[in-house]
Every structure is written in C-alpha cells, then in structure tokens.
C-alpha cells in the first residue's frame, strides 16, 4: 500500500511541478468551453441546449490531451523498466498512475463543471446530476485511456489502429453522461443512465489495469 501511494504521490507531484497538472488542466477546460460560444455564436438559449454535450466533449479532450504522456515519459527515461521490476505488481502501478492522472485531470474538471455550466447557461437544476455523472465518467476516461497509452508507448507500432480502438470505448461514457443530464433537464430520472455509467466504471476498473499492464510488458521486451 505504501508503494502504491508512493507512485500516486510521485505522479501527482510530477504533474504539478512540470506544469502539466490540475491547474493547467483546469485552464484548458475553461478555455475550451470558452471557445464553443465563440464558434457557435453568443445565443444563450442555443448554448444551454448544447451545454452539457460540450462539457462532456471537453472533459474527454482534457483527459486525452494529458493521457498520451501517461506512460510515455517513464518509458522514454527508463523508469518504466524499473517500475516493472519493482515489488508492486505492474497492474497496481498502472492503477496508481491512473489514479494520479484522474486526481489531476478528471477530479478538477468535475469540480469545475458547475462554473462552466453557468458560462454555458446550463440550468442549475442539472448540476447535481452533471457532477455525479462526471464523477463516475471521468475515471472511465482515465482508465480506458490507460490501455491506449500503454499500447502506444513504444515505437508506436500500429499505434494508429490501437488509438482507434480506444476512442470508441469512450463512446458509452459519453452517451450515458450526456443522457443523464438531458434526462434531468427534461424532468426524468437520470438513475438508469447513472447506473449504466457506474457499471461502465466497474468494468473498466476490473479490466483495464490488466490490459494496460500486459501492453506495457509487451513494450518492454
């Protein structure tokens, strides 16, 4: 356990120190949300209709942008070899790194969602659903993304194909997340969508560390 937290702490510190971390992810999030009204036009009624969709797309992007370096930096400087030899099982190392990634991207994005919702004129009644959905959905983005990051860590052999595999895996999280908010706005219960999102999270939690660890081992050969 202390090894696990050592990895988490290291990655969080690296993210914060190197200017790749939560503060800047937040800024990225705010900035991108700002861009949509610029492109789409200032009509608030229009914005409020597309608002939650925009928020989800941007959360996905914030995750994606930082994911590609999840293992790459450690691979390129040789740390990954050492992590693979350490007593902490590689699956747990992956989980620790994913947790650190989520703490510095998904979590801040979730916490910021109401503020961004206000800028996009989303109805405040939808905020609780939005936040719960993001709390369930953003870890999925980090988890699923870790497989893609692990697969593409090496010489990017077939990297194209593999990233194509990952993007569609994001679709369920996106759809359920957006539907949950929509349901709330229409006065329906978001429960079924949130449950599906939760199931998605559980599946990702159970499977992706194995996949990512296997992919990493392959790249260390």
């Amino acid at each position, binding site marked *: 356990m202390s090894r696990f937290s050592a990895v988490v702490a290291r990655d969080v510190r690296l993210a914060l120190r190197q*200017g790749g971390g939560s503060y*800047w992810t937040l800024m990225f999030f705010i900035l991108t949300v*700002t861009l949509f009204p610029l492109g789409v036009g*200032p009509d*608030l009624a229009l914005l409020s209709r597309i608002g939650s969709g925009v928020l989800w797309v941007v959360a996905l992007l914030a995750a994606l942008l930082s994911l590609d370096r999840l293992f790459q930096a450690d691979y390129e400087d040789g740390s990954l070899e050492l992590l693979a030899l350490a007593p902490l099982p590689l699956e747990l190392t992956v989980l620790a790194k994913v947790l650190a990634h989520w703490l510095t991207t998904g979590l801040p994005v979730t916490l910021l969602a109401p503020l961004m919702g206000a800028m996009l004129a989303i109805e405040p009644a939808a905020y609780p659903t939005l936040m719960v959905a993001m709390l369930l959905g953003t870890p999925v983005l980090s988890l699923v993304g870790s497989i893609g990051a692990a697969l593409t860590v090496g010489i990017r052999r077939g990297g194209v194909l593999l990233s194509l595999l990952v993007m569609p895996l994001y679709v369920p999280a996106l759809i359920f997340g957006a539907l949950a908010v929509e349901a709330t706005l229409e006065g329906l219960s978001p429960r079924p969508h949130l449950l599906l999102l939760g199931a998605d999270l559980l599946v990702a939690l159970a499977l992706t560390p194995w996949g990512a660890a296997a992919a990493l081992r392959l790249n260390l050969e």
Partner: protein
Amino acid sequence: MANLHWLANPGRFLRISNAVVPYLAGLTVVLLAYGLWRGLTAPHDATQGAPATIMYMHVPSAIMSMTVYGGMAVASAVALIWKHPLADIAAKSSALIGAGFTATCLISGSMWGRPTWGTYWAWDARLTSELVLFFVYLGYIAIWQAIEDPQRAGRAAAILALAGSVNLPIIHYSVEWWNTLHQPAGLLQGKTDPVLAVPLLTLLAAFFCFYVTVLLLRMEREIVGRKIRQLRLLQAQA
C-alpha cells in the same frame, strides 16, 4: 568577475527603488482618496443609477489591464533585444498585477452587467477578448513556472508576451469592429462629461501609482529571491 555578475546592476536598482517606494505608496493613497471622494459625491448618471458607481472600479482596472500588458510587452522586447535583466524581472513582476486588474475588470464588469444588461455574462466581443487577455496573462505566468532556469524562462515568456500582444488592439477595437452590448471608448478622447471624467482620470492615476508601487516591491522580492537561489546553487555545488 565583477562584470560577470549580472546582479551588479540590479543592486543599484534595489537602492533607488527602496528610496522611491514610500513616496509612491503615499501618492497612491492620496489619489485614491481624492478620486473616490469626487466620484462618490458626483451626481449619479440619470439612466444607470447607483450601480454606475461600479464604474469607478471597472473603467480604471479595464484600462490598467491593457496598459500593464502593453508595458509587459515593451519590457519583453527590451529583454529580448538588449538582454537587460531588469526588463525581464519587470515583465515577470507585472504579470500577476495585470492578471489582478483583468480579474477586477471582469468581475466588476459582470456585476455591472447584471443590472444594466440583465445578465452577468454574454459572449460579447469585448467581454470575450478581455477574458482571453486573462488567459494570456495566465499562460505567461505558467511558462515562468514551468521552466526552471530563470534566464531561459524569461526569454520564453518574452516571446509569448510579444505574441499575445495581438490581443490588445482586438480588445480595444472590438466595440467598433462588431456591434456589441458594450460601451465604446470615450474617456480618453475627452467625450466624457467632466463630472465623471475628473474622478475617473484621478482614479486611473491612482491605479497606475498602485501598479508601479507593487511592481517595484515585487521586483525587489524577485531580485532578492534570485540572489538566494543562486547562493543555494553555489552551496549545493561546493
């Protein structure tokens, strides 16, 4: 060895700055007091009523947010071309103050917007470009944080500051280029009623003195901080 030491010149700056700061601080307080007194006792704008007093916060901070950035851009150019270490430090020390003015402008503007336009925020050209200015400030601060070596960070930040200066004319002319909710400029062209203009200009001067005071203090801190850092590195190497 002596001319090698780039802090030799900043040392002289420290002495001068120490002497000037108290007077500047005093001047800031006097101007602020006079401007606020004139402003708050002036007859209120008939159409806008009491919320218009936010103007005394909004207009000077809006103008300062751009002035500070302009100064930063000039300092950056000086730092890049003549490699003057003080220009570097001046630009760095300005950034947070400028970001503060920008935030003040944004917050006061949206507080003013609620009663006059009926909304806190609109995706209006001037409002948006001012928000973008805020992001440019943050990006500038970020690059200083992200690069360890201050010499290199300084030049990287200077390049960014110059690139970001394209935003200044956009903010200023946005009201003319696009039809927007926001007021066009009038204050500095002498189109404004002296009853409003006198307190506004006084407060602008006060804000400016405040900026210079805080800038000098921050520069002093930065110089001393760098000296300490350098000593630490020397120690680590010994």
